[in-house]
């Protein structure tokens, strides 16, 4: 599934004109990104939380050359799915293996 499919879903289910559906989906994604850019946690009930985590600098190795390098400190996004989301995925009809 891609963004285009999400837009189609909004178009089908909400009945918004295609162009508006597209604009709205973009706005939703952008608003979430902007909040994360500010280091803010985004809590979407029933879905999950996007959290910005600060990572300290650590040592890494270039797997090709074996040379040791310093991995700079950085901020990364992690997503913690809500219980509802996890249950939804677990209880779905499709079976694993």
């Amino acid at each position: 599934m891609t963004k285009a499919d999400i837009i189609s879903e909004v178009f089908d289910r909400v009945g918004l004109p295609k162009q508006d559906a597209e604009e709205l989906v973009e706005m939703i994604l952008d608003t979430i990104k902007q909040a994360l850019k500010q280091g803010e946690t985004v809590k979407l009930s029933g879905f999950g939380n996007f959290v910005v985590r600060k990572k300290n600098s650590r040592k890494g190795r270039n797997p090709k050359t074996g040379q040791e390098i310093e991995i700079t400190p950085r901020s990364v996004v992690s997503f913690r799915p809500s219980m509802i989301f996890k249950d939804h995925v677990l209880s779905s009809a499709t079976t694993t293996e």
Partner: protein
Amino acid sequence: MTKAELVDQIAEKKPGLTRKEVENIVSTVLDSIKAALAREDKVEIRGFGSFRIRYRRAKDGRNPKTGETVSVPPKKVPFFKAGKEMKEMVDGKG
């Protein structure tokens, strides 16, 4: 930021839509992602990131209280990986 705040921010920018309508759209977007993962599909949103299922093997666990061994069944959990643009933005490069 909460879902309510997300809805408010968008409703403010789109005076043509009611708050209720915006809420409905936000829920539709989130529900469609959940539904895709429930049918073991993956969702790829360029510039944002991708959602997919990660499979966890069955393993032997232990009840921490009693020390008793219990078998933990295989699991599927939702997993998000930030896209390039998202990573750079959050790390202050975007």
